[in-house]
């Protein structure tokens, strides 16, 4: 069950596109004079799995940040049918505190997201991602791959409806990548995914659509 809480600034809309979790129209983004995104349209249906591909600098990360609500477009509009608490986001940074342990990080996010049966859920995820044995170690002592696994635990902790993953296979070894594959397989169709990758073949079996940025 997705944890969902209302918060200041969150407006419940009469969603105009039944069945769509995310709709973007003519999205564009400029940083000063530099244009990083131009005229992107996308519709992501409930349960869909959209793969975003493109070369470096094509605006994949910017698009995903806009879709997650972390950046505002300078052109076009984006509409999300999910509340902030129903979204899971994995960016280039793991968004965990290096001086805290895995347990402390997940406990913090679990509290903020109001996750029911938080301890059980944290334990289950840590075990599934192979971090149970090191749960009381500080994240600073983790390898990059272990930190990425913890970041994936953080993303899935509150069982989000919309999952936005920016290069999720980065730093994962083959075992970690297979774990992520199994998670994607398990959640495919039940959750909605927006995934950017340089390796579209890896997520091809899960994809329901593809958006290529030039």
């Amino acid at each position, binding site marked *: 069950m997705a944890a969902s809480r209302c918060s200041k600034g969150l407006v419940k809309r009469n969603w105009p596109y039944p069945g769509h979790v995310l709709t973007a129209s003519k999205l564009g983004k400029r940083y000063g004079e530099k244009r990083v995104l131009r005229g992107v349209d996308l519709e992501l249906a409930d349960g869909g799995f959209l793969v975003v591909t493109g070369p470096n600098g094509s605006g994949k990360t910017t698009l995903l940040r806009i879709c997650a609500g972390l950046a505002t477009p300078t052109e076009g509009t984006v509409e999300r049918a999910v509340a902030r608490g129903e979204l899971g986001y994995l960016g280039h940074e793991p968004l965990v*505190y*290096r001086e805290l342990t895995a347990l402390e990080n997940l406990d913090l996010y679990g509290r903020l997201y109001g996750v029911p049966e938080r301890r059980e859920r944290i334990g289950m995820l840590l075990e599934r991602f192979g971090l149970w044995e090191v749960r009381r170690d500080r994240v600073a002592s983790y390898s990059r791959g272990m930190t990425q696994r913890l970041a994936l635990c953080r993303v899935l902790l509150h069982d989000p409806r919309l999952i936005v993953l920016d290069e999720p296979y980065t730093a994962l070894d083959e075992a970690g990548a297979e774990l992520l594959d199994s998670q994607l397989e398990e959640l495919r169709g039940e959750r909605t995914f927006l995934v950017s990758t340089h390796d579209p073949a890896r997520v091809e079996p899960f994809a329901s659509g593809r958006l290529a940025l030039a």
Partner: protein
Amino acid sequence: MTYLRDVGALARKDLLLELRARDTLPAMLLFVAAVFVVFHFALPGTPSRLETTGFLWVAILFTALLGLGRAFVPEREQRTMDGLVLAPCDRSAIWLAKSLATLAFLVAAEIVALPLYALFFHHVGGAIVLAVALADLGICAVGTFLGAMAVVTRARDLLLPLLFLPLAIPIVVGAVGASVAHAPGKYLAFLALYDALFAVVCWGSFEFVVSE
């Protein structure tokens, strides 16, 4: 209740981070102690109570600035602000929790600073303690808010003092007045009014500081 739970979780995180990293509090303690030692040897003869009260507030303000400058360092260095901003809690909870954690560090520094002041200079009366408590609230509320604004800029180390010190002038006026006046009531009321006004402004507008 949910809001307070969120504030509690975030403040606990900040205290835990400081307990592990020990970046802020030891620096504040050493700084405030060093300032009093320097003042003690730099001032000729026996300075008046009026003069040393001014030094006390200068020391407190700059010690606070040291803590405020470090308040958002974990979020900046580890880029965790995105994670906090995405969480469904009210974003002002981030400000309130950070203010409370900074307040805890400042109070800890003052627990050392006030006895040192009494040792080197003059007796610390009840009015000074009350003024310190009220000034701390304003310093932490405004300073944390400005710290969040400054941390996303390249000139953050310069920007925070430039933004904070002008806004801290009313605190200094109220605090020094309360420390030296025979009837400190109106100065304490002024400090309380400042705290209430700026706490409401910072609470209500923090959302815009952390949004792009």
